């Protein structure tokens, strides 16, 4: 297929090989949406945890359930990746790691760092 100007384009998402920077970028967006969706839960947990000793105990025991632990690990990945990819952006704004080669390396670092943070969180909550 071609665009109106004649340049070819190909948008089969199952066949396109994404460069690591693209994977890091879409993961930054997905993790951001996950974190944003969790904000009401965070505020609710804050509300319950400050409402009294019973509310506080409810928050602690809820986080200790299987679902609570799974949510914590997911949030650890989302926060870890989002923060690392964010720091990567800020450094690139300051021209640190902005060349193609180092940008590819830091994209790998952010992806791996998010995974490691999720693993550490999994070990801690289990």
């Amino acid at each position, binding site marked *: 297929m071609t665009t109106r100007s004649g340049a070819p384009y190909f948008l089969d998402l199952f066949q396109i090989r994404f460069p690591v920077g693209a994977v890091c970028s879409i993961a930054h967006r997905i993790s951001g949406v996950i974190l*944003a969706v969790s*904000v009401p839960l965070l*505020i609710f947990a804050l509300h319950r945890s400050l409402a009294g000793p019973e509310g506080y105990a409810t928050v602690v025991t809820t986080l200790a359930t299987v679902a609570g632990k799974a949510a914590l690990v997911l949030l650890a990945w989302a926060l870890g990746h989002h*923060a690392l990819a964010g720091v990567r952006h800020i450094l690139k704004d300051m021209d640190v790691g902005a060349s193609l080669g180092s940008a590819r390396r830091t994209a790998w670092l952010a992806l791996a760092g998010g995974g490691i943070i999720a693993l550490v969180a999994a070990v801690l909550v289990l």
Partner: protein
Amino acid sequence: MTAVLTGLRAWTVQRVSAVYVLFFFLTTLVWLAVHRPVSYAQWHAWVTSGGVRPAMMLFFAALLVHAWVGLRDVLLDYVKPLLIRAAALGALALGLAGLGGWAAQILISA
């Protein structure tokens, strides 16, 4: 509506809020790690002590503004019909403002 917080200003707000959110989150994480297991009395005393309450209010303000810039970008990328886009942005703004009010009310009455 789409003109709220755009361009260089949005870029600056996104980055400044990001740095503060990360700073406050890590501070809280360290506090929790140092004091664990944390009791209700300890937690309540810490949140309501001196500078922590305003610092936590600022955290939620920064978090919600950061979420506005990011989710606004997401909506602008995927929601093209103008009316639906305006409605989605309006709902998002109302929702985030409501969350901010809720968090502030929790911290004030704590």
